[in-house]
């Protein structure tokens, strides 16, 4: 089934920012601070490097198989049966990730803002907005998210800038008090959430306009780098603000905004970062639902590509209400299990497909096994 709508390269870039930053702007770097301490920003940088590698494989697959999603690439490189298995694993991943994002919104609201309200209220309304957006199509989403990403980044950088008086650069030292293992631990977490998730972006590549493929790579690298810089900045600022206590602080950027007090004018800034959280999570949830729907449609070869949107959302909504028994369970699943799932399934699949694509091109170029320089 050929996608009909196409999105410009700059719109794809902003989709990539929304996809990568999403809700992580508020959650990161708390789990990394817990794992790596002062080296949280170093582990972010390392995992960003890993994410660039994944992105380069995604773009390579787009070059060798233009207009094909990950499922279609699997079909052509692995065969229909392995492709179906891969698609099932992807769907399972997305059935975990999407409810987790929305559960995060509900968790934020119930723990910080409106403690009396049950979480099903927030989750339901969030899913309502998400499913209606996805129903409107990728083009509408691309148009919306360009502006929403700008607003989200603007709010985030505003808070980071206004918190300048709170920063203590001396909190950045010592750099590796626990050695390399905490750094690797932080890298493992961040490689799964959020940088490794870019592997799933292969499902959106068919929507990129063919006419702009030359600019696409450049713009996607730039967008992904912007993500890395933003999260890195957030990690550094969090460490400089809270020092050794950074690992104990949930929603670091929110807590930073809470501390801002410049005269009588700049206070109560947490509402701004709350908006950024909801926007980021909303955009990421929309993209994940879109990918989930797309994967299901391609796996089952359905003709109506919007038929399953509501039942998928319904299942995901109930999953978001039942998956996590308590905050500790949430942390365990999201920061222990999920990174492993992303690395072992999503990223491994992309690496495998890229390797197979590269090999098949070599085989096609040199069918007799002769080298390039042979007479």
């Amino acid at each position: 089934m050929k996608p009909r709508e196409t999105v410009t390269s700059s719109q794809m870039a902003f989709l990539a920012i929304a996809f990568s930053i999403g809700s992580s702007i508020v959650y990161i770097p708390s789990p990394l601070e817990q794992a790596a301490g002062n080296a949280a920003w170093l582990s972010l940088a390392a995992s960003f490097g890993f994410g660039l590698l994944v992105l380069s494989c995604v773009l390579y697959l787009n070059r060798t198989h233009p207009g094909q999603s990950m499922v279609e690439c699997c079909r052509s490189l692995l065969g229909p049966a392995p492709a179906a298995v891969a698609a099932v694993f992807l769907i399972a991943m997305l059935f975990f990730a999407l409810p987790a994002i929305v559960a995060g919104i509900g968790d934020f609201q119930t723990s910080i803002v409106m403690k009396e309200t049950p979480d099903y209220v927030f989750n339901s309304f969030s899913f309502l907005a998400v499913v209606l957006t996805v129903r409107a199509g990728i083009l509408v989403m691309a148009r919306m998210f360009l502006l929403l990403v700008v607003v989200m980044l603007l709010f985030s950088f505003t808070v980071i800038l206004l918190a300048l008086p709170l920063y203590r650069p001396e909190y950045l030292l010592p750099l590796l008090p626990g050695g390399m293992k905490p750094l690797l631990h932080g890298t493992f977490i961040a490689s799964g959430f959020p940088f490794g998730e870019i592997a799933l972006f292969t499902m959106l590549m068919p929507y990129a306009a063919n006419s702009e493929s030359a600019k696409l790579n450049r713009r996607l690298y730039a967008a992904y780098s912007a993500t890395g810089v933003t999260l890195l900045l957030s990690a550094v600022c969090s460490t400089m603000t809270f020092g050794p206590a950074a690992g104990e602080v949930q929603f670091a950027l929110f807590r930073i905004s809470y501390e801002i007090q410049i005269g009588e004018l700049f206070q109560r800034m947490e509402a701004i970062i709350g908006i950024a959280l909801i926007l980021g999570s909303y955009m990421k949830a929309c993209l994940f639902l879109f990918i989930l729907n797309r994967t299901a449609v391609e796996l089952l070869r359905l003709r109506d590509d919007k038929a399953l949107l509501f039942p998928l959302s319904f299942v995901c909504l109930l999953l978001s209400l039942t998956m996590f028994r308590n905050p500790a369970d949430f942390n365990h699943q999201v920061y222990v299990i999920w990174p492993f799932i992303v690395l072992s399934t999503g990223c491994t699949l992309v690496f495998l497909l890229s390797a197979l694509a590269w090999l098949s091109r070599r085989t096609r170029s040199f069918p007799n096994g002769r080298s390039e320089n042979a007479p």
Partner: protein
Amino acid sequence: MQENFIVASALLVAVLAADGRRLKRLPRKEKWCYAVLGLAGLYMALLFVSQAPWPNLPDLLHAVYGGPAERLTQYLKASG
């Protein structure tokens, strides 16, 4: 439990109301897929209403990925 039952019912009715007309026009394969998802949704609704510790998706993922993930994390957490 009552509250959760009302919520789950309201959500189910909302989904069916939104998709009611479209359902009749769907091809047969889509209808079957919708039904399967509907069954999954009903199971999840039952979980939500009863809050019973029955098998859920995280348990499935834990069964597949949990072991290696926790061992890796333990290894990385262990002091050097």
